[in-house]
């Protein structure tokens, strides 16, 4: 009976397209059940898929993102870029098991964080489970790992705008603060039961819950906006934009892009939390949206009178992946194709026209691709979700209402990320000075900050 009610409610949440597990809720449920029946056991198939997905996301960070970003920097900053990405990811993992997981997915709490009851993974054992969107469960340790990789890659993405000039120590301080005051709360708001945007009805409206299947808002808008703000505070690289700063190895960038695509399925199909048909839908969407976006960027370059470029192809792929993230399980394949194409074209203009126009130095276009692409995706998801566009929605929610919700979620994320980033960046500045000396920037951060050269 209890079980049925729980399942029913979970289904409901699922239908609402809520991004991720409702651990605290189910944990609560367990308590009730304990009396009545044995705890549910994870189906090995779902555990297997979630472990695989977790590793796919890890691969996105190192080597994926490290290569994608690193290839775009100048060779004198290659190791600095790779190491900053790797080290913040490691830091994020340690913080996650200490106070991150409990803040985002612990039990209790309010609409913005879920308390500290699971600090240091208190009470978690190999037998603990986390609920999925059906009556299935997966091992809680697996769920913790899966979510851990999301936190790790999100903070690493932010670095895209500040590489080649930000101190390693500053990066570490920034990451610690930023994860705590920006990432964990936003993840909770969007993905955890009780979360402000997860529950819908924001500001006393009766708007539906926000749709964010795999992190368009939590990961990409969040990272992109934070990257922009951090870059503005940090300032431009010496010589930008007058001095040419061509990517030192587009080969590595292409490799990184490929690994990001492969890994992204852990992100998107993994967010189904099960190896079911919904994961299958997320998977096909992550294929076609990316394919479409990659080709459309090259097409746009042609239309603008340039040659279709390899970097354009790779950038388009990422833009498509970003845009399809919130829509992965919330769209039909053809909705995804459109979404990818639109995001690709818009991001093209963001990085090649908007950025030069405004003159900020978002070194690797973390904002231009993840921020902008994330917004297109978040809002677009409100549209493609509708059945008339081939989406999996049941039509019970009007497109207008859903889009309204999506916009609110976007705005909340933008504001929260911007404010939090200002705080985190200034704390880092206070403690470390934030930026390397002109000499070090000149010589390169590899030798200056790490005492090594990438190539000998």
């Amino acid at each position, binding site marked *: 009976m209890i079980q049925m009610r729980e399942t029913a409610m979970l289904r409901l949440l699922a239908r609402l397209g809520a991004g991720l597990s409702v651990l605290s809720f189910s944990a609560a449920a367990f308590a009730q059940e304990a009396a009545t029946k044995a705890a549910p056991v994870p189906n090995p198939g779902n555990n297997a898929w979630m472990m695989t997905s977790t590793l796919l996301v890890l691969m996105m960070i190192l080597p994926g993102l490290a290569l994608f970003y690193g290839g775009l920097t100048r060779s004198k900053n290659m190791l600095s870029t790779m190491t900053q990405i790797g080290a913040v990811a490691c830091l994020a993992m340690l913080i996650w098991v200490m106070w991150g997981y409990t803040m985002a997915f612990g039990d209790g709490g309010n609409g913005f964080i879920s308390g500290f009851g699971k600090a240091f993974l208190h009470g978690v054992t190999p037998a603990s489970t986390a609920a999925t969107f059906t009556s299935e469960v997966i091992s809680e340790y697996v769920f913790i790992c899966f979510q851990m990789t999301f936190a790790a890659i999100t903070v690493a993405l932010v670095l895209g705008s500040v590489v080649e000039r930000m101190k390693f120590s500053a990066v570490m301080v920034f990451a610690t603060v930023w994860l705590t005051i920006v990432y964990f709360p936003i993840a909770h708001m969007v993905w955890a039961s009780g979360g402000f945007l997860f529950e819908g009805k924001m500001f006393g409206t009766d708007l539906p819950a926000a749709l964010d299947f795999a992190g368009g808002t939590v990961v990409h808008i969040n990272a992109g906006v934070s990257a922009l703000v951090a870059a503005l505070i940090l300032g431009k690289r010496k010589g930008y934009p007058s001095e040419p700063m061509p990517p030192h190895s587009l080969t590595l960038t292409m490799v990184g892009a490929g690994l990001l695509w492969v890994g992204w399925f852990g992100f998107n199909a993994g967010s189904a939390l099960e190896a079911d048909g919904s994961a299958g839908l997320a998977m096909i969407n992550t294929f076609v949206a990316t394919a479409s976006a990659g080709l459309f960027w090259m097409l746009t370059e042609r239309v603008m009178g340039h040659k279709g470029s390899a970097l354009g192809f790779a950038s388009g792929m990422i833009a498509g992946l970003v845009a399809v993230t919130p829509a992965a399980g919330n769209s039909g394949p053809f909705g995804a194709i459109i979404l990818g194409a639109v995001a690709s074209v818009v991001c093209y203009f963001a990085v090649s026209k908007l950025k030069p126009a405004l003159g900020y130095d978002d070194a690797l276009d973390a904002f231009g691709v993840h921020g902008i692409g994330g917004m297109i995706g978040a809002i677009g998801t409100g549209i493609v979700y509708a059945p008339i566009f081939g989406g999996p929605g049941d039509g019970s929610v009007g497109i207008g209402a859903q889009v309204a919700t999506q916009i609110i979620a976007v705005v909340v994320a933008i504001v929260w990320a911007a404010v939090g980033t200002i705080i985190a960046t200034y704390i880092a500045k206070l403690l470390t000075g934030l930026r390397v000396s002109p000499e070090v920037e000149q*010589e390169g951060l590899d*030798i200056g900050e790490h*005492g*090594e*050269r990438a190539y000998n």
Partner: protein
Amino acid sequence: MASVKYIIAVIKPFKLDEVREALAGVGVAGMTVSEVKGFGRQKGQTEIYRGAEYSTNMLPKVKIEVAVADAIAAQVVEAISETANTGSIGDGKIFVFDLATATRIRTGETGEDAL
């Protein structure tokens, strides 16, 4: 045919663009550039790999080779010295040679006309 001087300058890599503009300023049509390693008073950064410490004095430099008419040779040296000068050790050197002949492959022109 008017005689020609051949100038080899070793400078700090990040000064290349400036120097090139300066040369264009004094009317130098072209030049040939290569990446070299320089050894001199300037000391290099130490690199450490798993405890193995290498304090190389070999520093990345850029070598510029430019042939110019006698007439402007002095100016050219001047221009390089000024723009490549940071005042700190390692700014580099300028060497001037007399050239027997210079030829433009495309046209076969020689001497100043070859430049």
